[in-house]
């Protein structure tokens, strides 16, 4: 099997926070559904952002990140063609990151921007074929009826499904989901996980999800990679992880025994802390 993601020697330090990554190497095969778990501040979201080149590794490190055979960053420097390579990577955010004032359909159409010539993309001239594809993507997440609504009028769960439709529109071969269900109610969370699982099974899309809740990771993913204090704590197929592994990962307070196995899919997700608002620099 070809590898979808190859990370070697990823090291990252932040000046003003204690989140950091220490010499992480990870390989994910094409078609896998992997969950990154770990306590808050373990670096799982930071790790995911590196895969899309939204965050850069320390520039003195000897790191290398490759997604689907295309280099994303090496030694803390972005690849020259990062924008083209990003189109192959669908990214799902905890806060959805839709453009709230645009319609649901337009938000999905944004997924196809990188396949459009600039003279159409700059004037929002989407053609019939693109609109049909976007509508099909919406149909797949069950939101075709909402196409002309403004994104801001949808519920959190619906917005996250629109974000997934946008990734589908990208025809991405890898989907990275950063805490996709942390702001959602249990029913919506389950729905979102089901859709991601379906995309993984049907389209053979590689899916990597950071999750706050171990029960969702076990219920929907094949392989769990646990991070703690910026290091890989364990990396196991889902059927080989044991409760003792989790108690070691999270400390005594949060063990698996709190979650009855048959209730896992219905259990209440813990609301995670939203990441602090950063003043992002828009020139990548």
């Amino acid at each position, binding site marked *: 099997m070809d590898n979808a993601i190859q990370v070697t020697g990823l090291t990252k330090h932040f000046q003003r926070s204690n989140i950091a990554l220490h010499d992480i190497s990870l390989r994910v095969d094409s078609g896998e559904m992997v969950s990154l778990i770990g306590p808050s501040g373990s670096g799982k979201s930071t790790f995911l952002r590196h895969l899309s080149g939204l965050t850069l590794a320390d520039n003195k490190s000897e790191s290398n990140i490759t997604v689907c055979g295309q280099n994303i960053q090496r030694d803390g420097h972005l690849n020259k063609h990062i924008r083209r390579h*990003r189109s192959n990577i669908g990214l799902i955010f905890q806060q959805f990151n839709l453009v709230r004032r645009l319609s649901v359909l*337009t938000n999905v159409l*944004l997924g196809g921007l990188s396949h459009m010539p600039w003279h159409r993309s700059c004037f929002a001239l989407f053609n019939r074929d693109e609109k049909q594809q976007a509508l099909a993507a919406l149909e797949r997440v069950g939101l075709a009826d909402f196409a002309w609504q403004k994104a801001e009028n949808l519920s959190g769960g619906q917005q996250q499904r629109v974000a997934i439709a946008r990734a589908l529109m990208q025809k991405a071969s890898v989907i990275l989901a950063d805490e996709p269900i942390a702001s959602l109610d249990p029913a919506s969370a389950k729905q979102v996980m089901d859709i991601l699982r379906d995309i993984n099974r049907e389209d053979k899309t590689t899916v990597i999800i950071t999750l706050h809740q171990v029960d969702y990771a076990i219920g929907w993913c094949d392989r769990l990679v646990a991070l703690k204090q910026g290091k890989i704590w364990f990396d196991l197929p889902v059927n080989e992880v044991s409760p003792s592994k989790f108690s070691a990962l999270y400390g005594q307070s949060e063990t698996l025994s709190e979650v009855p196995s048959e209730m896992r899919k219905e259990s209440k997700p813990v609301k995670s802390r939203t990441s602090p608002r950063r003043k992002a620099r828009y020139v990548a």
Partner: protein
Amino acid sequence: MSAGYPSQALDQVIAAAPKRSWLEIFLWAVFFLVLAWSWQGAEMAPLTLIRDSENMATFAADFFPPDMTEWRLYMDEMVVTLQIALWGTFLAIIFSIPLGLMSSDNIAPWWVCQPVRRVMDSARAINEMVFAMVFVVAVGLGPFAGVMALFIHTTGVLAKLFSEAVEAIEPGPVEGVRATGANIFEEIIYGVIPQVIPLWISYSLYRFESNVRSATVVGMVGAGGIGVILWESMRGFQFQETGAVMLIIIISVTVLDMTSQQLRKRFS
């Protein structure tokens, strides 16, 4: 009811209120000193208002009744005034979009942002009337000088207001657009503009309102519009005509302000 709290305890909490600091008292003192000092510089003489009130009443009476015989001419010039304001504002909006984006520190690198900001500062610092005098020399008497004066000054103002809106956007949606592989222009068009457009429209309408007011005076230095007539009738001591012109200005500006305010409410 104090719900079981002994009043003594409540007094203690009240007594613990933060004390007014010496710095605060000092700053107030400075403020009043500056006011007193400026009274001198501005040669404030409120008593003359009372002493010369008779003169002023006589002068004011000269404006009445307004002489409306030339109303058709005044209306024509008022329309020209609005046309000056419209083009001055329109050109300013067109130029402020790129210039505003270029002076936003979350979009442009510092070596673009800082120089553009300084140029915009100077466009804003100099009053429309001064620009009008400059352009009367450059392009000759007439409304076009007025348009140019309003355009340059308003670009300075709008570019600043536009960039402040851009700097206050949520970064999330822009990152969402970027993650699809979009380029910088697509990020701006789809991630930034939709977030700022309501504010931009509101600011532009507000500037149009104030440009209509400014356009009524640029004529005084020969830059076209109703200001020309206003100035000529005043210099010719035709105060009843002046009164008529002022009346027309008041009515038109009021109507426009109210319309534009209604429009702005829809966007904010």
